[in-house]
Every structure is written in C-alpha cells, then in structure tokens.
C-alpha cells in the first residue's frame, strides 16, 4: 500500500475511527494489529523477518537486563565482603555474559539484513572478478525478497539493544509492546529511525481525542502530500528524462537534472516524513523530527545535522563513537601521534573512523557501488572541510564576513551545489557514468539549450513548470519562515474561517495539481528502497 494510494487512506480512516472508539487501554494493541496487517498486505513473508528481529532483540535485551539485575543484587549482598578487585572481577564476568547475548543478537539481525540486501551485490562482484580472471564460471543470483523498511526497523531495534547493553535504558517487559516499537507502521515505509526513549512512552500511553492535535496531524499530512504529489512526482518526469538518456542530455542538462533531483529528493523524503509524523500525530503519537531546513545548511557538517537527523545520529552514537573509543583506534591514535606528531597524528584516526562510518552509511543506503561512492565522497568532503578549518579561521580573522547576509547566502548556495553534486551518484546509479556526466557539465558548451523551450520541456508541459515553480517557491519560503515558528502555529492564530479555507485550498491544490492520472504513475518514496 503506497502512502499515496486510496487503499492506504481507507485503512487510515478505519484505524482512526476504531482507535478513538475502543477503550483507550487497548489503543496500542490496535496499533500493533494495524502495523502487522499493513506489513502483511505489503507481503506476507515480510512478517517472518520482522518477527525474527523482534523476538531475538527482545529476548537478548531481556537477558542482558536480567544479568544486570542479578549483578546488582549479588553486589548488594556482598558489599561488605567483596574487595575492590573481587567486585571488578565479578562485574567483568557478568559483562562477558552480557556481551555474548549482545553480539549474538547483533550478528543475527545484521546478518539477516546483510544476507537479504547484499548477497546479490556480492555475487555480482565475484562474477565481475571471475570475468576479469577469464574463467567461464559464474555464480547464480539468489531470488531474495528485501522486506520493506528492513534497514529502518533493523537499525531501530539494534539501537534499542545497544541502549540496553550500555545501560541507558531498561529492557521492555512486554514482547507485544516491543513488537509495536519495531513495527509501528507509519515508520516502516521510510523511517525515521526512532529511539526507544523517545518513542515508547508516547506509543504506549492512552490517547484522548484532541481536536487540535488531530487537526495539526491532518495539516501535516496534507503538507506532505503536497510535497510528494505536486512537486516530487511531477519533477520526477524531467529527472527521469535526463538520466535515462545521458548521451543526449549532457552538459547543461546534467546541471538541470542535478538541481531537479535535489528538489525531487527533498520533496519526496521530507514529504514522506511529514505524512509519517502527521499520521502519528492524528493518533496522538509524537515522532521526533528528521529534518531541520537542510537547504539552509552552511557547510556539509551542518547539512548532516539537518538532513535525515535520526540516521545521522544513529551512525554517530552507535558506530562513530564506539569505533573511535575502540582499542584498535586508540592504539592507532597513540602510534600516529608518536610517529607523526600531535597535529597530523591526532587527525589520522579521526579521518579513518570518518571514512569507515561513511562507507557504512553508503552501504546502508543501497547494495551498489554508487552508494558506496556517495558515502565515501561525503566522508572525504567532511575530512577536507575539517582539515581546512585553520585556513578558514585565518580567512575569517582577516576578513570579518561571517554572519554577513551576502556571505551567508554564499555559504548556503555553496552547500546546496556541493550536496546536489554528490547526490549525482544516487541519481545516475553508476559510478563511471556519474563522473562522465559531472565532467560534461564543464566540457559541453550547450548552454543555449537552456533557452530552447522545446528542448527544455523534458517531458513536462509549460503548465507543469508553472506549478513546479510556484510550489517550489512555497516550499522554500515555508522552510525559511520556520525560524519564526511552526507553520501550523501561525495558521492557528488566524481566524478559523480563513484557516479552514486555506486548508481546503491546499487539499484542492493537491487534488488538482497532484501528479497522477494519465502520464503519471504514483511512485513509492525514494527512501523506501533503502
């Protein structure tokens, strides 16, 4: 069921009615049932995988928690008799047992993800190698189904496991409540990756019908549909025209495609998250925000603090930090500082960790080299900007332009161009082709095509361009005005009649200008494939 399908909204309408009619203490049970029905309808076999992840994670976390409780009780009983060494020895023996459960669970769940997502990628690479070696043998590809949202729910469940293992949270006692945390259906399509601490309380508590909250949720859903149907699915036609014919659409078209894809991805992903957060809000549930006006970022690090926040913080907290404080990296740090001095020596381990994390981030996005190249390019650009920081500091000392409107605009435009260029790996899905098309922007002098109306149609009509231009201006303006507070709070302050008229108009705009019908095909969200 697509978020943009009639079936899905029928499903939501039924759930909404029942959710507020049944006794409130059963609301979370209803959400669990709805989530499993949603997942079953997507594909019955998906349920097997999500159930395995749920059960293994629940059980391992429970065992880790039980071991900690036993340790506390044992230390309490023996607090008078245990020496410091005995206490530490006992703690370390318990930690070892906990680690066994922890590692077994990580291996099972990341193993399932790796098997389903990366087996055919590995086979393709082995076959390429065999072909280079000149052998006629080839491995056969496996017929595996990649469950929807597996990367999202696996990361969410493993985040919970790590939090329990690190003692940040207590394990959930009910497997059914935990099953809801893993499978909460609006998040299954494309995240966000929630933390147990943030989501659990709001997910399990009883929710009264709150008109304001429901109305806010509904407005957020409409706003998401506007982004997805009016902008993303419309501009997609032009993006596809450009990327599917790279020999014909090179040079200036690549630049147009790059910028159009930036708009498409932004509208598609943030629109999808708006719908997710909106559905949750209608049900009285609060999900953490995943974006903070990323197109206003002033540099790549700032961008990654604003875009897909829940994924970025997942990799930071559960991979970047643990890897950075691991024995091998700390040993490397000591070695590199001794050999290379404090300056470069201090940076080498940080750079290495950054590259590993971005390699993993690329791989998380997809099982192909273009995503790995995308991830590594992000890592390299972050490292370069980090390395040049002293130079920037000297520049800003000499020329105090920081914070000035013109310089701020330059920073924003620079970051938009940089991030859009890196995304070309994602857009063309082929590393050599991406480099070739990137180069063609500077070597093919076909700028006159920009002024040729027929050539620039790219599968869209003049009316489409007018709709796109107007919608994009609204999109950017709303992002910029977020500083002044939420759009819905501002709407709330205007008289009810005008407010409802505006909401009604937004609905009409989606119905009239949404990209469906002849020539269009409502598409799944881009991030759904990850």
């Amino acid at each position, binding site marked *: 069921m697509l978020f943009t399908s009639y079936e899905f909204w029928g499903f939501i309408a039924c759930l909404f009615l029942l959710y507020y009619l049944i006794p409130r203490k059963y609301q979370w049970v209803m959400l669990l049932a709805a989530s499993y029905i949603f997942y079953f309808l997507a594909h019955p076999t998906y349920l097997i995988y999500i159930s395995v992840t749920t059960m293994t994670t629940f059980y391992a976390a429970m065992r880790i928690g039980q071991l900690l409780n036993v340790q506390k009780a044992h230390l309490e009983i023996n607090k008078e008799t245990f020496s410091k060494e005995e206490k530490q020895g006992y703690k370390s023996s318990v930690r070892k047992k906990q680690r066994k459960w922890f590692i077994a669970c990580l291996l099972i769940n990341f193993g399932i993800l790796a098997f389903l997502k990366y087996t055919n990628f590995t086979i393709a690479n082995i076959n390429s190698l065999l072909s280079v070696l000149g052998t006629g043998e080839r491995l056969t590809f496996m017929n595996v189904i990649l469950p929807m949202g597996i990367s999202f729910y696996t990361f969410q469940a493993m985040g919970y496991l790590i939090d329990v293992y690190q003692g940040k949270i207590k394990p959930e006692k009910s497997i059914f409540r935990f099953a809801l945390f893993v499978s909460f259906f609006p998040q299954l399509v494309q995240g966000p990756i929630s933390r147990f601490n943030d989501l659990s309380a709001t997910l399990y508590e009883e929710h009264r019908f709150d008109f304001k909250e429901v109305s806010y949720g509904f407005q957020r859903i409409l706003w998401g549909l506007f982004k997805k149907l009016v902008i993303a699915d419309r501009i997609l036609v032009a993006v596809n025209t450009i990327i599917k014919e790279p020999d014909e659409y090179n040079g200036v078209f690549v630049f147009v495609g790059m910028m159009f894809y930036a708009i498409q991805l932004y509208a598609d992903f943030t629109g999808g998250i708006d719908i997710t957060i909106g559905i949750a809000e209608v049900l009285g549930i609060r999900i953490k925000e995943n974006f903070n006006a990323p197109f206003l970022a002033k540099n790549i690090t700032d961008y990654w603090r604003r875009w897909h926040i829940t994924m970025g913080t997942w990799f930071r907290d559960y991979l970047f930090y643990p890897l950075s*404080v691991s024995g091998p990296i*700390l040993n490397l740090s*000591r070695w590199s500082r001794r050999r290379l001095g404090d300056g470069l020596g201090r940076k080498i381990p940080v750079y290495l960790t950054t590259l590993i994390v971005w390699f993993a981030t690329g791989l998380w996005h997809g099982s192909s080299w273009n995503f790995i190249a995308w991830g590594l390019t992000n890592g390299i650009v972050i490292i370069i900007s980090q390395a040049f920081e002293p130079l920037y500091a000297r520049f800003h000392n000499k020329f105090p332009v920081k914070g000035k409107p013109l310089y701020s605009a330059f920073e924003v435009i620079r970051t938009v161009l940089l991030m859009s260029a890196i995304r070309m790996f994602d857009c063309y899905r082929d590393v050599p082709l991406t480099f070739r098309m990137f180069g063609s922007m500077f070597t093919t002098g076909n700028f006159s095509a920009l002024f040729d109306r027929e050539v620039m149609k790219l599968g869209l009509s003049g009316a489409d361009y007018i709709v796109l231009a107007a919608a994009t201006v609204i999109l950017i303006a709303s992002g910029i005005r977020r500083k002044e507070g939420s759009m819905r709070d501002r709407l709330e302050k205007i008289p009810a009649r005008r407010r409802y008229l505006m909401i009604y108009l937004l609905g009409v705009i989606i119905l009239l200008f949404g990209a469906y019908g002849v020539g269009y095909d409502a598409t799944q969200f881009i991030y759904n494939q990850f």
Partner: protein
Amino acid sequence: MNELISILNGLHPDVDFAEAEGLVDNGVLDSFDIISLVAEIDSEFDVRIPAEEILPENFNSAKALYELITRLGDN
C-alpha cells in the same frame, strides 16, 4: 584540571575552557573534537572513556569532563 584545560586549548585556543559552559550544546565541541579528546585523555590520563559516556552532559564543560575522568579513574 590544568592538564585537561591545556588539552582543550590545543583544540580551540580561543575558548576560555575554565569558564565556558554548554560546549556541546553551543557547538563549540563537535564530534571530531570529542573523539580527539577521548584519545588524548586515554593517553594523558590513562582513562578510557566508553562510548556510553559520550553524552553532551559529560562534555559540556571542562569541569563536567574532569568529573567524568575522575569517576572513571576511580572505578
């Protein structure tokens, strides 16, 4: 404490770490700085800061960080 302040000054010479608060919340220390600090603390104080202790509240001021080092050192 002086040793810690000098490590912190090595990262950002322009910041008065003896007084500054909200180092993480205000973006003075980013994740790069934090892991550089962890490595330096490991080698200078022989104290290994585990990943679960990398929390904003432990890095928001030199005082909080010093308390963390002392606590982990005692254990």
